[in-house]
């Protein structure tokens, strides 16, 4: 480091004698290995995107079912003024207010 000052180096030198024990190093390595394994699946882009896609689909299904399947927005059949169910035609449903 160009800006490094020899005087500071001399002052702080005692702190540089601090070293981790072998036990500490092994503990950190085990923790890293454990974390690496835990993230191995999520780390792969294909699986990560697949997971996101599946989660988005599931949430979309839940929202759709909640809104349209649970009767929260009921169809008001009483206000139905015209309905065509011709097999060869586009189904057209018209509601009044």
């Amino acid at each position, binding site marked *: 480091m160009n800006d490094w000052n020899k005087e500071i180096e001399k002052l702080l030198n005692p702190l540089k004698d601090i070293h981790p*024990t072998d036990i500490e190093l092994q503990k950190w390595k085990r923790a890293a290995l454990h974390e690496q394994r835990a993230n191995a699946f999520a780390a792969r882009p294909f699986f990560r995107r697949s997971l996101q896609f599946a989660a988005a689909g599931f949430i979309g299904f839940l929202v759709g079912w909640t809104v349209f399947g649970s009767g929260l927005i009921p169809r008001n059949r009483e206000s139905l003024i015209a309905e065509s169910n011709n097999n060869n035609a586009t189904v057209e449903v018209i509601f009044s207010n």
Partner: protein
Amino acid sequence: MDWSATIDKIGPPLLRYFCGSFPRQIADELVQETIIRLVRKVETGKYDPSKGSFLKYAYGIARFVKLEGMKALPAETLPGSDFFSDQLPMESGSPDFGYDQQLRARKIRAALLRLPEVQREILLLILDKDLSLSEIAEILEMPLGTIKSHVHRAKRSLQEIVQVEEAIK
């Protein structure tokens, strides 16, 4: 990534960095927390080598962990407390780390604890000379000129504290 080799390289400087602000036992835990977060970020592709060196990235996480530690830990374990002063002797892993070295380390650490937080932070970041002042400026989100003036002031304060303590003894 070969995490075993990486930890051999970054573990010791991270321990020294945390030891400047916390008792050894807490520093050990904070190094582990830093490593876990580092592995998670790298393995999930959040580390972008184009934005700086790996070491700078590691120290950035370490600083965040340190700030979190200061908020989460009981006040009596933080720098400046009696508990912390009692923990000043350095329990080095090396059996060669003798009594005199422990005393010198304790003295310099006591002096560091009297410095303002930002000055101590800068000195601890430049302790291992792995980071440039520009990288330290990025980690601390400060202009390079401010970092340089803090280094100058920290050096002067540290010298004064050490000289006063030696004069008292």
